């Protein structure tokens, strides 16, 4: 769950209390490294890859994934950010954050786009992101990398690269930071 949902959106408005640590900093580093290899393997060393982090939870992960790709393949992939607020189906229920800008480094036509987010849940963010991406060009392919897939999809969307599959209840909250993935609840 991204920072802004945790802070501002009910029913989560409250304090996150972790019950267990799912991944620690080393696990996260290894997961990013593995996903980097998977991306290159899947795309057969294609150098047309652009990594795009979804605001706000996917941005740091996208940069780390970009670094991993650089180290593994030797070529530096462009890394961008995307705020899907204007494309959401629940627009108006959430704030548009000026500190969460969209920066797309290139025309996306013909490129392989790897969308990056921290947690995949209902799939609605990704649905919005797919709409948004197509306003920047016609990519050759769009793939999805997430640190945690927690299930409960409401749309026919699946990830291509997953850090950790984590079965959850709907009332649980997954918190992803740069050093840990925790499972817990919101306390009012």
């Amino acid at each position, binding site marked *: 769950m991204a920072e802004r949902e945790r802070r*501002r959106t*009910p*029913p989560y408005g409250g304090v996150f209390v972790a019950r267990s640590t799912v991944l620690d900093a080393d696990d996260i580093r290894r997961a990013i490294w593995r996903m980097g290899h998977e991306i290159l393997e899947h795309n057969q060393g294609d150098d047309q890859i652009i990594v795009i982090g979804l605001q706000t939870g996917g941005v740091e992960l996208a940069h780390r994934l970009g670094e991993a790709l650089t180290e593994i393949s030797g070529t530096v992939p462009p890394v961008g950010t995307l705020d899907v607020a*204007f494309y959401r189906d*629940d627009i108006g*229920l959430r704030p548009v954050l000026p500190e969460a*800008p969209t920066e797309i480094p290139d025309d996306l036509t013909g490129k392989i786009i790897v969308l990056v987010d921290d947690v995949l*849940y209902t799939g609605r963010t990704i649905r919005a992101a797919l709409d948004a991406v197509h*306003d920047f*060009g016609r990519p050759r392919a769009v793939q999805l990398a997430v640190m945690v897939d927690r299930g409960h999809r409401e749309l026919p969307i699946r990830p291509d690269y997953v850090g950790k599959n984590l079965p959850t209840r709907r009332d649980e909250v997954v918190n992803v930071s740069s050093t840990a993935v925790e499972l817990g609840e919101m306390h009012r």
Partner: protein
Amino acid sequence: MSRTAQRHLLTIDDLGVEGVQRILRLTDSFVEVSERRIPKVPVLRGRTVAWLFYEDSTRTRLSFETAAKRLSADSMNFSVGSSAVNKGESLRDTVQTIEAMGVDAIVVRHKSAGAPKQITQWLDASVINAGDGWHAHPTQALLDCYTLRARLGGIDGRRIAIVGDIKHSRVARSNIAAFTALGAEVVLVAPPTLLPPSLVPFDVTVSHSIDEVIGEVDVVYLLRMQLERMHEALVPSLREYTATYGLTAARARRLGPDTVVMHPGPMNRGVEVAADVPQMPNAVVTDQVRNGVAVRMAVLFDLLATEADPVFGDDGEETDA
């Protein structure tokens, strides 16, 4: 603060400092949208905006129309010249007819001050003031603030000279409100005949000499000589006005290198501004027009897309990440 209370945009004072800053922040996002390959986002899909312009307008109307289209709203065009207004239909009947067709917002320009406010009494739709008489033109003030903020990095503490026909100018009234709300120091430069009868509501100083202020301000904001609103001899002649208050080429040379020149348009070149001044690097006239679209996107978005409280959604629906 209840955000749902704000359904209309009539004046800068209604919006308040917080509201002005909120719109300016939102505008940043819409400037980015406007630079995209496909500068269109689906935030107002299914919403309808109607234009009700009882007065001539090129840029405001086109700007609002472009803004609505970029937000995917539908627009309903009403041109007074070819409408039932010519058959004697009243303003009230006209707006209620438009509302009966299902609109979410009406953008109004009217020659009478207070007409947009009056309309709010008759409708459930949002009303946006696109200029009423001498009273207010809030979106112009917002786009000027945005342009200045982008150019100077901020408005707080800046000295801004507003030059010209203050008396007949709704742009001046809204800009004074917005500039002073954001912490600028405003000096009005005009002959006594072109100043409003009372300056009490404004926190401004007055000068009758453009030459005295021109070297020491950060911004020179020129107003149009509103020839169509002048029914008496307020200046001896346009030529004399130009000689004493116009930004001539000679005065333009005395501007500081970072002094910004603004004009809300349409310009009377050769009257309040010399023909080639708007092409100077200091002049931001085209920036004003460009930013106008993004600012009006922000205004429409602020009024129409955020029905629920943007900080605490009201339905408690579960959200994904």
